[in-house]
């Protein structure tokens, strides 16, 4: 059976954070370069924040992917809520030390000072808004002691702004805000992603009108865009199999974009 033209593009838009799928867009590249420069500086803490789906996790993974070749970097994608576990995991991965006794903050700092590494190790914390205030306080103390350099990501919501103010505002030396993508940026994102996978025909099907509609529906949210396009290409796969005559290969049908949006919940119909 001949493979579907749209099955490969569909799989490209699965909502998985993979640094290899990182797509260079001018504004995001600029942000990433700023982040990399900040990491090189003797800063204690770097905050990466923005609304959901602006690419914070992807940038963090990309940073981890790039930095891990040269220095000790730990990526904590899923928050470790328990304080003992958190310190123990960091001590084990950064310092290679796994004490049998309970890991306290003091013990952690002792281990850190005993090793005295040449480059300050970096810990990347995704979804930092999920950490408890007491653990955030410990993270602050560790960074103040210059035992570890933290790069943390936060969702920018009203509630989370308060957390940011209380625990990080005075200690953060660098903060980078990520914005939602514009229609043009989304077009570049989609087309680059498709072209990277050699899906030229499908990439050419997206015109400005299509991208404006997609951007309006997803509000420039990369995660929502991925979900929408996954549904859209699933629809194309179905039509290709059942009603191939209804497919226009020169442009994406707005009706199907809207149907995909209904399916993903972006449109309440």
């Amino acid at each position, binding site marked *: 059976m001949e493979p579907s033209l749209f099955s490969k593009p569909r799989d490209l838009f699965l909502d998985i954070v993979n640094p290899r799928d990182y797509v260079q867009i001018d504004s995001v590249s600029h942000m990433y370069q700023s982040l990399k420069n900040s990491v090189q500086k003797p800063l204690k803490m770097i905050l990466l924040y923005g609304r959901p789906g602006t690419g914070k996790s992807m940038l963090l993974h990309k940073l981890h992917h790039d930095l891990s070749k040269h220095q000790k970097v730990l990526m904590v994608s899923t928050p470790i809520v328990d304080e003992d576990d958190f310190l123990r995991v960091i001590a084990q991965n950064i310092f290679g030390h796994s004490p049998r006794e309970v890991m306290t903050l003091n013990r952690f700092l002792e281990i850190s000072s005993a090793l005295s590494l040449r480059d300050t190790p970096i810990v990347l914390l995704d979804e930092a808004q999920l950490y408890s205030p007491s653990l955030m306080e410990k993270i602050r103390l560790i960074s103040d002691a210059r035992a570890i350099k933290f790069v943390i990501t936060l969702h920018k919501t009203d509630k989370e702004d308060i957390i940011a103010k209380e625990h990080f505002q005075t200690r953060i030396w660098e903060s980078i805000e990520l914005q939602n993508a514009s229609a043009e940026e989304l077009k570049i994102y989609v087309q680059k992603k498709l072209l990277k996978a050699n899906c030229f025909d499908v990439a050419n099907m997206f015109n400005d009108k299509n991208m404006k509609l997609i951007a309006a529906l997803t509000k420039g949210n990369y995660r929502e865009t991925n979900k929408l396009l996954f549904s859209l290409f*699933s*629809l194309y796969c*179905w039509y290709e199999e*059942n009603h191939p005559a209804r497919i226009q290969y020169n442009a994406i049908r707005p*009706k199907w974009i809207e*149907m995909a949006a*209904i399916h993903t919940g972006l*449109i309440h*119909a």
Partner: protein
Amino acid sequence: MLDIKRLERRWLKYKIKSFLPHFIALFAVLSLLIGISLWFNTEKSADHNRTDTEKNIVSLTKVPLPTPISDHNKTVLEPSMEFVQTFQDQYVAPEPESKTPPAEVPVPAVNKPVRPVPVPPKTLHMPEYTPPPEAPAGLKAVPAVSRTVTNDKSLSINRNESKLDIEDLQRRFKETSNANLGLFIARYYYDHGDFNEAYNYALKTNNVNNRIDESWILFSKSLVKLGKTDQAKKTLQLYISQSNSDAARGLLDAIEKGNFK
């Protein structure tokens, strides 16, 4: 697994829902525009009618209304119908000629043509009845003077109100601008149910002489007959305010009470 059929139905529902406000807005705007245009047209025609009425009123008010009547401008209708009526009622008796011997008298009065004497009725005296002197036997066969016969012969008033006569009157009115003629023509047309012409001649008469009660009354009556009751009322009110005419007031009351339609 995608349920495409259901998705298509949901999409159709979504499209209808999303276009509905536009349709409603479009319908509302169109209705509003139609309403405004209809209202504008109605207002325009109402204004037009109002302007016409105002023009008529203005033209009426331009005619100077009567001032207290002076003897100098007194209008006298001639001939006096009262006189004619009185004359008709008169018993025509043979002229008593006492000096004439009875033998020479037997000329019956019936043979004498009766001529209207231009003497005011007040000056006429009813002659005393004196029985005719006994006629000679030969003349007894002659019937006595019958009053009716005398009247029939002497006062046969022929009212020739043919079209030609009216045209002649109109021509004369045009030439002379005599208010009496105008009033006569207006009255003629009013009596014959031609209220438009009655209105026109009453108006013309008013232009010639604006102190004739009857002319204003005919004018107002014609207006009522033409369905312009309001205009008639206004005219009468205006006239009453200037002339204090009882006849005009009476007509105005009748119009207002609906007795005159």
